[in-house]
């Protein structure tokens, strides 16, 4: 495992927060996913060794929780809430707008590797539906027009990077 020094420092800091090392499984997986972008197989072995667990103990956690992924995704992660309050205000159309902007289906990475579009369940912001998270940032009242603006912004940011 090639983790950044900051990641390793934060791992050292978080383990003593718990009387039992196993409790640090989720925090370690979050830190690794933030660093690497996903949870590669060797990370499961690495976390298990670090926390004195069997790899299966870590693997079963990775496979259960929706936020942990075992494959890389696009550079930007677009998560559209599909649960009732958002759906009532057009979340399915919002999701389609992102899909057509990037030529992907939900659950897929766009051909240029720029985005992954996913449906997610209630993000606890139902009063400002439909809501979308792009990476760590919440966007509220994302109708089709707003989804197109946000898509254009992602394109501009991608162009500025290259």
């Amino acid at each position, binding site marked *: 495992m090639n983790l950044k020094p900051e990641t390793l420092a934060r791992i050292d800091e978080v383990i003593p927060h718990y009387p039992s090392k196993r409790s640090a499984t989720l925090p370690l997986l979050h830190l690794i996913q933030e660093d690497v972008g996903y949870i590669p197989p060797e990370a499961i072995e690495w976390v298990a060794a670090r926390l004195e667990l069997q790899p299966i103990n870590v693997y079963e956690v990775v496979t259960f929780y929706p936020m942990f992924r075992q494959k890389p995704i696009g550079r930007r992660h677009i998560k559209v809430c599909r649960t009732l*309050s958002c759906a009532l205000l057009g979340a399915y159309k919002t999701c389609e707008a992102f899909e057509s902007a990037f030529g992907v289906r939900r659950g897929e990475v766009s051909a240029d590797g720029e985005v992954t579009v996913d449906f997610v369940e209630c993000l606890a912001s139902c009063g400002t539906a439909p809501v979308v998270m792009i990476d760590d940032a919440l966007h509220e009242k994302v109708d089709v027009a707003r989804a197109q603006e946000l898509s254009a912004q992602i394109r501009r940011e991608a162009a500025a990077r290259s």
Partner: protein
Amino acid sequence: MPAPAQRRIIFQHIDEPGYTNDLACYLRHGGYSSLRKAVARKPEELIDEVKKSGLRGRGGAGFPCGVKWGLVDRKSGKPIYLVVNADESEPGTFKDRYIIHQDPHQLIEGIMITCFANNVKQAYIYIRGEFPEGARILEKAIAEARAGGFVGPNILGTGYGCEIYVHRGAGAYICGEETGLIESLEGKRPYPRIKPPYFPAVLGLYQCPTIVNNVETLCHVKTIVDIGGEAYSKIGTPNNTGTRILCVSGHVQRPGYYEYEVGKITLGELLNEVCGGPLPGRRFKAVIPGGSSAKILRFGERFKGKRKIGNDLVDYDWGVEDVPMDFDCLAMIGTMGGSGGVIVMDDSVDIVAALANINEFYAHESCGQCTPCREGSLWMKKISARMVHGEARTEDGALLKSVADQIAGRTICAFGEACSWPTQSFLAKFGDEFKAYPESRKSAAAPAVPLA
């Protein structure tokens, strides 16, 4: 009669211009004075204040907070933990989010008072994984509070010490269920534990006595210590004391969060006056009053019976609009106040598609331990999705109901009830629409707003 005014206690500073989430701002507004009051008193007295206040949990079940604290095993010699439920995962609920993001120190103060009252030395805030910013805000606020002597080894010079750590979830609804949450905090899959024997108050985190409370509940504890349990119990209505935050979403003109004395506002006042009524040209069709697990109400239905007011038994005859928003009245009419999430649907809504949307949620979120829940939630999803997208049959309603009826009461945790109530209540209230669906769907245009 105009709707009563909001009574903002917990949300006093939410959205206030110039109010920031740092310690200095909190202190300028009198912050941590309740903690100062608390540490000058005996822990037992604080538990008594909370008992006197009548505070009921705001996470979903409405269990009396003081009673919960009274059940904690204090003789085991094991450490006692506090776990703050900041999972906020019940669809339709969005109140803890604003406390965490805009007023984190109010929560930390409530946590520290609760810890002092219950001799807790270690608290964890379990925050849902989809609140990365919230987790950072809490961590910063805890560090500030630690530097200020409100958290840490020697709180306000008393010699009493307590730490708080933030623990992030990773996108699973079942982590909101308190024993699932505890398993998750132990680093495992969040499989809920069976009660008995695993009551958190006795065998909780690391098999130690554990208190699990919702974010909003702990903010109320802060207010109770500030004004006294007796004074708090006069806010709201008997057995439904204090204020609560009602989160309104869906088809109203002004969705959002509104804090009211419990039971002092009716559902009709809330939706018609406070939230501005239905969208232009629309009428209300249905409302789910306490998070997506609560049973649905159909506008036009009536509820009749007798209820106790003081010592008298009084007749009531209510339409949906007349129901006071409190735990007991909502339970009386067959639904629940739950988490305070009010989801409104107008007459544009295809009720079968709305159920398909909810069923997809529960099928996705069942932890899978219990066969009736795992299979039942999956089949309810498949049947309702087929009705919407494939072939609908007149007998599908009865089939859905028969699946739902076999789940509740046969599972480890209350998710079993939570996933069957929507189907049961949608069928009970809108059985006619399910029956007519094969025909009505043929003539219907493609939905402008698909729900599933």
